[in-house]
């Protein structure tokens, strides 16, 4: 897909900012890859020039093999009617990033959620206290290196289910398959 097919307001935004790789993913979907330090500028420009007033979600992906977190900012505009997903990568070791609360107020909730689930600290976010998890003392559970089954084995006990018919089945070489 060429740049020429983009709506005019998005053109204006991408002329202003450098280092943006964008990819049309459908008639109303645009993927944008950008350096982490340019993202707040992009969001502000999108909001100001192309009517991207709506931040519908921030999602996070853990890439342990790259030692990176990927943050995806999903934006919507009634003006261009094209969804923009802005992807950035931040180093996993530091796991710090800037809050975009000053541009989009709902970001506060998404950042609080990501902080709880992935342990990423957002500088400037109004509230980083525990949000959804109840009485949680473990590590951030959505990180890929979190051992879910290990945690379950440590904190819960399993129901014993050992009926005669299952024992007979297992004696014949059948039964549950791992």
């Amino acid at each position, binding site marked *: 897909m060429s740049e020429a097919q983009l709506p005019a307001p998005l053109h204006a935004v991408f002329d202003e900012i450098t280092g943006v790789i964008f990819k049309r993913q459908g008639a109303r979907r645009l993927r944008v890859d950008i350096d982490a330090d340019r993202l707040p500028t992009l969001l502000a420009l999108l909001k100001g020039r192309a009517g991207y007033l709506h931040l519908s979600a921030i999602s996070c992906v853990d890439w342990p093999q790259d030692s990176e977190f990927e943050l995806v900012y999903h934006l919507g505009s009634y003006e261009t009617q094209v969804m923009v997903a802005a992807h950035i990568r931040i180093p996993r070791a530091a796991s710090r990033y800037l809050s975009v609360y000053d541009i989009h107020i709902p970001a506060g909730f998404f950042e609080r959620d990501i902080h709880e689930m992935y342990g990423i600290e957002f500088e400037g976010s109004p509230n980083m206290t525990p949000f959804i998890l*109840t009485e949680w003392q473990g590590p951030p559970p959505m990180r890929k290196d979190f051992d879910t089954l290990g945690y379950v084995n440590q904190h819960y006990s399993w129901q014993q289910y050992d009926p005669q018919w299952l024992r007979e089945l297992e004696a014949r070489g059948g039964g549950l398959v791992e």
Partner: protein
Amino acid sequence: MSSMTSYPIYRDPDTAIGCRTVDEQERSLLRRVLDRIADHCRARSLFVLHYCTGCGAIELPPSMTSRFDLERVGMQPMVTPRQADILLITGYLSVKTLKRVILTYEQMQGPKYVMGFGSCTINGGMYWNSYATVKRLQEYIPVDMYIAGCMPRPEAIQQGFLQLIERIDSGRATAWQDYYRRYDWYLGNQQAMFGEQFQTPTDVIAEARHYALASAETTGRHTALLEQQLQQAALMPVGPGRAAGESQ
């Protein structure tokens, strides 16, 4: 007229009715007969409270409505825990919802029955390796019956209800008494899940004494923690100072 005031005060209304002393043996027999009659009636009029945490709620409308029609066996949905007899846990329980289930359960009046729907309440079901899903419901509240399946079909639900009715009728659905008899164990499991600060507004120990179900295992190591917290709370100043202390 003055002799009117000197009548002895009867502490136990059961023995006072007959104006004679009824010995323990006879009284327990009478009580057992009355209980059997009450059980028989109770089994035919059950109010069901649905705690619809998961997909099990979808299977209930077909069970309730015209095709299978649970009202035939005397069951009806009820809106509040205080008027309900059966608590249905229809699906997986996360740690967060389990807390609400315990609060709901303790609000219900005895005798009360708990049914676990589907494999999620039995062993976590398809969330077996999830950090946030409770695995065995019977560790936190006593469960009368589980219905296996993911989800159980309305026929299975019907079958389960009929079995529960039969158990209530024959006086075998007594799991709720276990909560009072072994409250310390249940509370221990709840505290392991929610931290040692966990407590509910219901005074379960007093209820256990009221139902004459208190045993040696009703109180113990875990209920002692409750009492400690109670004493600490009693010493705390009432007003804004206390609210600040609680929020920390």
